[in-house]
């Protein structure tokens, strides 16, 4: 009995080992995707005509990226390509690098990525480009030398301005405000915050920005940081949260807090997340672009790069389905448009 079970184990082990050896032997000759050494510049790949387009958001399970991917999928289906979405469970650059490497091996036509770090995923993207894959960044850019095109949701100045305008209108252009951001290293949030500080200093001398706190785009952390802000600064008049997770968590805290009505909340949010807080009066107005359009435009940009219609150079122009014609600007950036303000009057026209 004992002997039998032991020999059984041995046979199984031997079988597995021999299987493994055959498999290892088989790996050596199959060498199609051994990527050439990254040369840094990258992007020399020829147009492959393979319309397989994979979206790689910062992380999965984020409603904002669910919406942009929805737009991307609609576009890809329109031009009869193959759509896929992959991504890490949490928004870290090292996990994104693993996914980019996988996509390089799979030799997809284009990667459409929102970068968790402008530098850390750079070399991996250039390796993908050397292997012939086109790279479009959207939402959050990498360094310009690591991608063919950046599809920008709105220019930073416009985003910063709309948020400063909204908070100034809501608090009567005077008093203490705070900012609830995403992670301390979020590329776009930091750029906007710097511009907002400058706009406040130049044009709104009576508004005092007391602190920037970071909710790490985590609902609970953002909720707790909101509570802490309101306790720490009893004179606080408003909170600006330039991230969809942050503004929703802040509004949720405020909607049941005694500070409701005294502290204004605005920033960047999505209509579906903010609808109940706009309806119950916690939030007057917030802004965003349409992430669905952003994904849609990014997918069309990727298609045109694969087709060879555009190279990503300044002045290149292309048709993006229902959105019309777009022209590539300086640094290979395509601009979606101005931010859009959502309030009680128009929020029910939107569903994302």
């Amino acid at each position, binding site marked *: 009995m004992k002997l039998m079970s032991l020999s059984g184990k041995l046979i199984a082990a031997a079988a597995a080992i021999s299987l493994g050896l055959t498999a290892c032997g*088989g790996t050596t000759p199959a060498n199609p995707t051994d990527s050439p050494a990254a040369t840094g510049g990258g992007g020399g790949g020829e147009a492959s005509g393979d319309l397989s387009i994979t979206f790689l958001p910062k992380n*999965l399970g984020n409603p904002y990226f669910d919406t942009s991917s929805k737009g991307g999928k609609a576009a890809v289906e329109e031009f009869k390509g193959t759509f896929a979405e992959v991504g890490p469970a949490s928004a870290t*650059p090292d996990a994104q690098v693993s996914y980019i490497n*996988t996509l390089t091996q799979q030799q997809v036509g284009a990667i459409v990525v929102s970068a968790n770090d402008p530098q850390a995923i750079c070399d991996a993207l250039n390796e993908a480009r050397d292997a012939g894959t086109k790279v479009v960044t959207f939402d959050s850019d990498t360094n310009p030398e690591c991608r063919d095109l950046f599809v920008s949701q709105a220019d930073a100045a416009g985003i910063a301005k709309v948020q400063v305008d909204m908070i100034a209108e809501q608090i009567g252009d005077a008093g203490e405000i705070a900012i609830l951001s995403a992670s301390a290293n979020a590329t776009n949030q930091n750029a906007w915050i710097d511009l907002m500080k400058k706009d406040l200093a130049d044009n709104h001398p009576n508004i005092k920005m007391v602190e920037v706190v970071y909710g790490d785009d985590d609902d609970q952390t953002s909720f707790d940081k909101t509570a802490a802000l309101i306790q720490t600064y009893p004179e606080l008049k408003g909170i600006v949260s330039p991230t969809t997770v942050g503004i929703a968590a802040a509004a949720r805290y405020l909607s049941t807090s005694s500070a409701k009505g005294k502290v204004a909340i605005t920033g960047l949010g999505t209509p579906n997340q903010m609808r109940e807080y706009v309806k119950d009066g916690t939030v007057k107005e917030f802004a965003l672009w349409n992430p669905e359009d952003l994904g849609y435009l990014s997918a069309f940009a990727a298609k045109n790069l694969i087709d060879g219609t555009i190279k990503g150079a300044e002045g290149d122009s292309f048709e993006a389905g229902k959105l019309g014609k777009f022209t590539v600007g300086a640094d290979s950036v395509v601009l979606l448009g101005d931010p859009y303000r959502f309030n009680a009057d128009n929020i029910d026209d939107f569903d994302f």
Partner: protein
Amino acid sequence: MMSLERTYQDYGHPLWRRWLVNRESAIIVLLIAVLAYASIAVPKFATPATLTYLLLDVATILMIALAMTPIMITGDIDLSVGSMVGLSSVVFGVLFQAGWSIPVAIIAALAVGALGGALNGLLVTRIGLPALAVTIGTMALFRGIAVGLLGTTAVTKFPKEWTSLAKAKIPGTPIPMVMILFVVLLIAFALMLHFSSFGRGVYAIGRSKDAAAFYGVNVARTRLILFIISGVIAALGGIYYTLRYGSARGDNATGLELQVIAAVVLGGVSVFGGRGALHGVIAGVLLIGALSSALRLANVTADVINIITGVLLVVSVVASSLIDWVQARRTKRLNRTSSTPQPATVG
């Protein structure tokens, strides 16, 4: 007591059987099975590029797991390694930005690792606090300093020759250069843990601290040394991580400690101490890495990958406890039978 009985039972089997039928071999067989199955079933898995990317992805975890293994064998744990990766990354980056040469900045970052490890070790051995509590504290402390030092910025302009070295392959092979460093470390740790009296002391501490002390092992000194080594290796991992991704940031490698501990436990190191070996740990790291790599190539989503590795970990821990329990019962029964007088005519 149960563990002592198990020891006698283990040693009651011939050497070849102890080598073939144990936790480490089971993980190695499982690893080979996963590699074999993925090579057949997953398109593009059986390519050299897979091996390159897999080894680059797990290199930091592999190094840190080497140092985590002896710590967990003594029954301690070091949860601060992920934060130490972040801290050493930032120290390295900040010093480089301040004009220090790369080698000097590396040495300084390693020194920070040694100091952090010494802090852990002294709090555990001199004050007598549990390692779990101490390293949860230093996990927050190191991460806090790291994020505080660099704030919202990142240091990225590392010299190309260093960042490409971190990704370079050994000429003519798909194996990254960093594996040479890993193998050197592996040999050092294997000699220390499996072929020295210091290493036997490590196992003895895990079985019983009192017995080990009585036997002549300097328990406090051994544990302190292991924490210092863990800090230095985590710092080394941090330097490698920084060069590999070309970016020194305060939040680098957040949560890495759990990946390391998961792989170490999967590799057969008992969370109660006293048991484990480096070859099992390496197989554990590679198993998790290979699974993730294969599942990614098979277009399985990140959530499902986490669920699969989680289930694997739970099953392996439960299975090993179950085996221990069955063996302990059998030993008891055997002891009972052998203590009854045997008739002289047997045989």
